[in-house]
């Protein structure tokens, strides 16, 4: 049974908070936290309305452009405008309906429907991305902790950490895959590439969060004669959590990108990268399939991002601000 009480509580900082107090229940705890927002409910609904509106507008624009293209035979001549609307052809911009249909039809003769193929590929790539994400985050945190405690190491290594991100992973990818195969850890090849993209934001933001503690908070710990390890866990890490989450929201989709790009030159067939190459090759015969693949890839990236954002909402409850 759910009992609800609406409390409008004016806190001492004048923030309007709407709390729905529910009887304690594991699942409702989640719901409760999600509802604890700093904007009024009305504002949230308007935001949602705008989001849906923009999406609908984009859908309408897509089909609208195609319709204009069709009607004008792909060359629009209206007053001063003389535009070649080749882009609106079915080859370049398939009807949204066709993309939807493509999911249900099999990609190969007598094969499973495309959606199944793509979902399998997504799971494959997703696993690589997840592993890469984990490894990258761990590496980033380790580096940040080392850097915050040793100024020398930071000065020495940080330029290279930054420079590492200018190296095109496309060039590194084949090398990493071959090294991994040689070292008998071929499963870690693509995750390593994803980790390469993932570790950098975590390092930078975590370092910032670990170092950016207020002077007096440090002095407080000193007055307790706390050792550096205690300071790390009781002060620096909790302080760094918001920063780390900001980084994770960048890292999560980046690991998906890394996994996809890592698959490209490595000739791996099972993942989304392989699917993209495959359907790109046969694009002219079935354009909607590539679009379908891209949409699934996009959703994977968004999924990763959303999970992190959700976890952030659950964990970071003490902040009055919402990022």
């Amino acid at each position: 049974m759910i009992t609800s009480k609406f409390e409008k509580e004016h806190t001492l900082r004048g923030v309007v908070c709407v709390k729905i107090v529910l009887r304690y229940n594991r699942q409702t705890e989640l719901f409760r936290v999600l509802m604890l927002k700093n904007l009024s409910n009305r504002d949230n609904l308007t935001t949602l309305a705008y989001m849906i509106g923009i999406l609908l507008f984009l859908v309408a624009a897509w089909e609208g452009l195609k319709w204009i293209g069709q009607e004008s035979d792909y060359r629009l001549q209206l007053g001063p405008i003389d535009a070649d609307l080749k882009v609106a052809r079915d080859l370049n911009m398939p009807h949204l309906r066709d993309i939807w249909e493509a999911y249900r039809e099999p990609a190969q003769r007598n094969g499973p429907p495309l959606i199944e193929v793509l979902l399998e590929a997504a799971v494959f790539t997703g696993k690589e991305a997840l592993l890469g994400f984990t490894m990258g985050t761990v590496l980033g945190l380790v580096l940040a902790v080392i850097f915050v405690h040793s100024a020398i190491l930071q000065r020495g290594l940080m330029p290279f950490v930054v420079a590492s991100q200018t190296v095109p992973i496309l060039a590194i990818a084949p090398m990493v895959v071959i090294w991994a195969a040689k070292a008998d850890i071929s499963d870690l090849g693509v995750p390593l590439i994803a980790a390469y993209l993932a570790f950098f934001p975590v390092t930078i933001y975590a370092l910032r969060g670990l170092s950016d503690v207020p002077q007096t908070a440090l002095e407080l710990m000193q007055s307790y004669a706390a050792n550096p390890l205690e300071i790390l866990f009781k002060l620096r890490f909790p302080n760094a959590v918001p920063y780390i989450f900001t980084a994770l929201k960048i890292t999560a989709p980046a690991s998906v990108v890394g996994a996809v790009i890592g698959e490209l030159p490595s000739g791996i067939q099972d993942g989304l990268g392989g699917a993209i190459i495959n359907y790109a090759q046969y694009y002219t015969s079935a354009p909607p399939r590539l679009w379908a693949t891209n949409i699934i890839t996009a959703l994977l990236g968004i999924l990763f991002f959303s999970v992190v954002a959700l976890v952030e909402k659950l964990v970071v409850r003490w902040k009055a601000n919402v990022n």
Partner: protein
Amino acid sequence: MSNTNSQDTLIVIQDLNKKFTSADGKVVNALENINLEVKRGEFISLIGPSGCGKSTLLRLIANLIEPTNGILTVNGHSADVARRNREYGFVFQSATLYEWRTVTKNVQLPLEVMKYSRQERAERAKKMLELVELSDFADHYPWQLSGGMQQRVSIARALAFEPPLLLMDEPFGALDEMTRERLNNELLSIWHSIPNMTVIFVTHNISEAVYLSSRVVVMSPRPGKIYKVIDVDLPRPRSAETLDSDGFFHYSSQIRHLLREVMA
């Protein structure tokens, strides 16, 4: 300086100097030739204009910075031993609560570092929050509290491990008059309730200094020196009546004149 029984003396400062060197080579004489003895159980205030080094002196006693030369002993041993033995609690100008911890967890912070048992931590925190009258807010987060309340939590935290010495650096400076008076009274009652507790209180507020302390140390700036030490001979316990008394007015104006001399 009166003769003191060595067992009564908590802090001995002799010929203490502190120099700061900035990056471009300039040397700032923050404190010069400080001589002071603080007896156990005293409530002593440091007052002076900005730049007189009162906060620096407090931080030297707390071993948050090192003196350039001179003698500084706390409880018979050096300041860093005192710090490692956790013989004092420090209250800062701003509450410095950890925003990710609830009020209770904030009060428990020193206890965690000092490895008290879980049960003891809970008990002490509860007791301290009762002392500062914030038991109702035990599970709130700092952002939900006003400035005055946060400062009270800060005091509760400083007292949680019952240190014999309390160092306070302009703790009520950012608060309004009404809250400050209330907190002054609370501080005094806490001080009374804990036997033999010494308090060193830095402030720039004359009436606060006179109201709270048994001795007021007036400091002068550039370089920081002790200008004069005034014994405040007002009866305890102090109350609203003390504020109206002639003695209070006498000491306040004495200190006011001293400060004018110091700033000239």
